[in-house]
């Protein structure tokens, strides 16, 4: 009985409430930060994991165009592997006959597709067709100029004389 009285007389437990206002503030800031950083960026690009880009002070934004990923052992056009690189040379690429290479064929096919799409779009909108196509190069920082140059030349022959070099912002 004495125990029963003690239990009956103990102070009533209050409902515990968690104050989530500060957490809400934090979440609101995070959400707005993420939304704004999302809006500032141009089209997002998935960079190939094998490509280690160099850092640069350049402030130009890239234009999302044909993407060529040059790693130390392969060349990828968008998601497709178009050539292998061995000992700093593109396998199957003869500098004197670049038009016979897979790389040239893939780039030329891509160019043709882009031109057709641009013409179609121009017809629909009644505008002049776009002609300034360029390649966005993602080159590994350890790649030699010899390798890079041989690929740039093929791209120029395939109809992409202008190009952009993708870099990481410093």
């Amino acid at each position, binding site marked *: 009985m004495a125990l029963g009285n003690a239990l009956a007389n103990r102070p009533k437990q209050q409902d515990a409430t968690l104050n*989530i206002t500060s957490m*809400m503030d934090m979440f609101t800031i995070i*959400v707005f930060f993420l939304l704004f950083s999302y809006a500032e960026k141009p089209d997002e690009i998935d960079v190939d994991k094998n490509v280690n880009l160099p850092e*640069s002070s*350049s*402030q130009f934004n890239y234009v999302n165009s044909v993407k060529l990923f040059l790693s130390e052992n392969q060349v990828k056009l968008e998601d497709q592997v178009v050539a292998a690189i061995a000992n700093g040379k593109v396998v199957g690429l003869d500098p004197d006959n670049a038009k016979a290479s897979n790389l040239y064929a893939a780039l030329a096919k891509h160019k043709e597709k882009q031109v057709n799409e641009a013409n179609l779009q121009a017809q629909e909108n009644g505008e002049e067709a776009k002609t300034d196509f360029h390649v966005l190069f993602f080159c590994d*920082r350890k790649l030699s100029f010899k390798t890079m*140059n041989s690929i740039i030349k093929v791209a120029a022959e395939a109809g992409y004389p202008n190009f952009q070099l*993708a870099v990481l912002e410093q």
Partner: protein
Amino acid sequence: MAALGQRRRKAGDLDVEIDMVPIMNMFLVLIPFLLSSASFLNLKAINTSVPVQAETASAAQPEQDKKPDIKITATVKLQPSMIKLEATSSELSEDKLKALDALVVKDSKGQYQYADLAEALGKIKQGYPKSDTVILVPSDSILYDDIVATMDVARQFGEEKLFPNVVISGQVQ
């Protein structure tokens, strides 16, 4: 007064607590979604093109009069052990162009002395402010990392704006 105050408090609105839990739930869904789709690689681009022959002005005017309009094209030859800077222009004499040439050797740690290169480029820019093009000619063995670093220096060193147009060109054998 005290009694009035008490009465007001009693008659006033009840403390209303907004139910934040649904908003919290929404945020908890939104944040992982935004984080997973966010990219923390801040990509930028360097615009380059093939070298273009500069237009030549008429040779009728004397050199001194034309100086502010003279455009010098700086050729930066990036070699494994040094950087050679050569000034080219059809509007200046060989002697004047030679005076603008520079040779920047690597330091004892094997690093290019970019400050010296910037100084030499700055000298050209100060003398001929209309100059805006650098032709970068790397040797075959030069790494892309060094090419980008040299291009950065040619465009801007510190706060000093140098040559906005940097063109890459292969070495002519």
